[in-house]
């Protein structure tokens, strides 16, 4: 069930996030991440957050700002090489970090969205990232059991929405946004443009409005 009125002001949308929330954030290397929402989250000072994202932007930029601000308790993601603050904070014991291979990360988020609690993959078998995980053979090949990754809130970026909340994306800014839209209890999407319902091609809608709770238009 979704509220009929989907259009929120930025701060109204961000106020849905609570101390200690698990927050998924779309984007890959500062492309396709909801810059306005992340900025507002940084300004909100809400802390103790678990951030589930591909990367953490750059030092002090994008999601990097949440780390500089001390708002992060834990990270679940896969590639923090673009932001060395993460390794430093982790090595100093300031934050907890769970690394998940990028493909497993994407699949585990989708899994949460489609009601799959766990699945097997060959990725990471025999590596440190599979230690303490169950290994099992199918047809004489080894696989590791991976659990779904869900969130309380997703902060996403799309190109256009229609008034119902159907979404399309732009080029490689699509990345993790469509899977995260399925996997969070509350889905907040920053969009560049909102069009009338029926103006997006039905065959080309990437995220149907069933997955979208709140739209915030970038001013």
């Amino acid at each position, binding site marked *: *069930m*979704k*509220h*009929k009125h989907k259009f929120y002001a930025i701060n109204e949308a961000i106020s849905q996030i609570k101390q200690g929330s698990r927050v998924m954030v779309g984007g890959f290397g500062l492309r396709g991440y909801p810059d306005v929402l992340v900025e507002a989250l940084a300004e909100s000072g809400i802390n103790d957050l678990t951030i589930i994202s591909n990367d953490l932007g750059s030092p002090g930029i994008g999601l990097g700002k949440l780390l500089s601000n001390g708002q992060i308790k834990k990270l679940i993601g896969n590639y923090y090489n673009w932001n060395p603050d993460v390794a430093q904070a982790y090595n100093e014991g300031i934050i907890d970090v769970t690394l998940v291979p990028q493909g497993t990360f994407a699949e585990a988020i*989708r899994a*949460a*969205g*489609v*009601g*799959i609690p766990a699945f097997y993959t060959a990725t990471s078998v025999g590596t440190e990232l599979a230690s303490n995980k169950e290994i099992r053979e199918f047809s004489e090949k080894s696989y590791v059991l991976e659990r779904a990754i869900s969130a309380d809130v997703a902060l996403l970026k799309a190109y256009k929405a*229609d*008034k*119902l909340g*159907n979404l399309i994306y732009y080029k490689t800014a699509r990345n993790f946004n469509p899977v995260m839209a*399925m996997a969070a209890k509350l889905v907040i999407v920053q969009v560049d443009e909102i069009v009338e*319902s*029926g103006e*997006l091609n*039905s*065959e080309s*809608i990437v995220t*149907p*409005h*069933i*997955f979208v709770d709140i739209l915030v238009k970038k001013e």
Partner: protein
Amino acid sequence: MINISKEEAKNRIAKRIAQEFNVTKDIVFINLGVGIPTMVANYINNENVFIQAENGILGVGPLAEGDDIDFQLINAGRQPVTERKGCSYFDSSVSFGMIRGGHIDVTVIGAFEVDGEGNIANWIIPNGKQLGVGGAMDLVSGAGKVIIAMQHNGKDGKRKIKKSCTLPITGFQEADMVVTEWAVFSLYQGRLVLQEIASDITLDELKSRTEAEFKISDNLIEFKT
């Protein structure tokens, strides 16, 4: 023993279930099974309700007629349908991702039998003329709420609301509401509770037509359509 025509029975059930959807001010996503459930759509007059069909569309419009028929645009019962504004298409894995992932608020589905614990049998009659499960198990397990739409009794008066299902089960304790032409039951903590009874049947007759025992709600009201 009173009776109404099969057609009237079906319409009564469809109309009553549609009431569930005609009051919501929130956006609600529903999936309608074949048969009586599909008829529910005819009585929904609330633009906040969006119908998903598991063959890959969200935003099913009314059944298509005449020139509007596009044979490549069907619902899961193979009926030609129309599009609502803002409808979208997707493949079967995404469609059942919506269902299994808990994004569909309500499914309305037919049944051969339902029992006092909310178990549903609607997919197969062993060694029968049909072999198929379709999306029934995914729907009863994945949807937020399961409404059973079925005639109260089968051929020759066979009682379909059983003490315990005799046919192979589709889902355990998944039914949340059962609507027949005579009554509306809810299932609460694995117990069947009569919520509404039609004016043209007595409680005794209803009991005689129902194998399962049921509790009577303190707020029992008349079944109106």
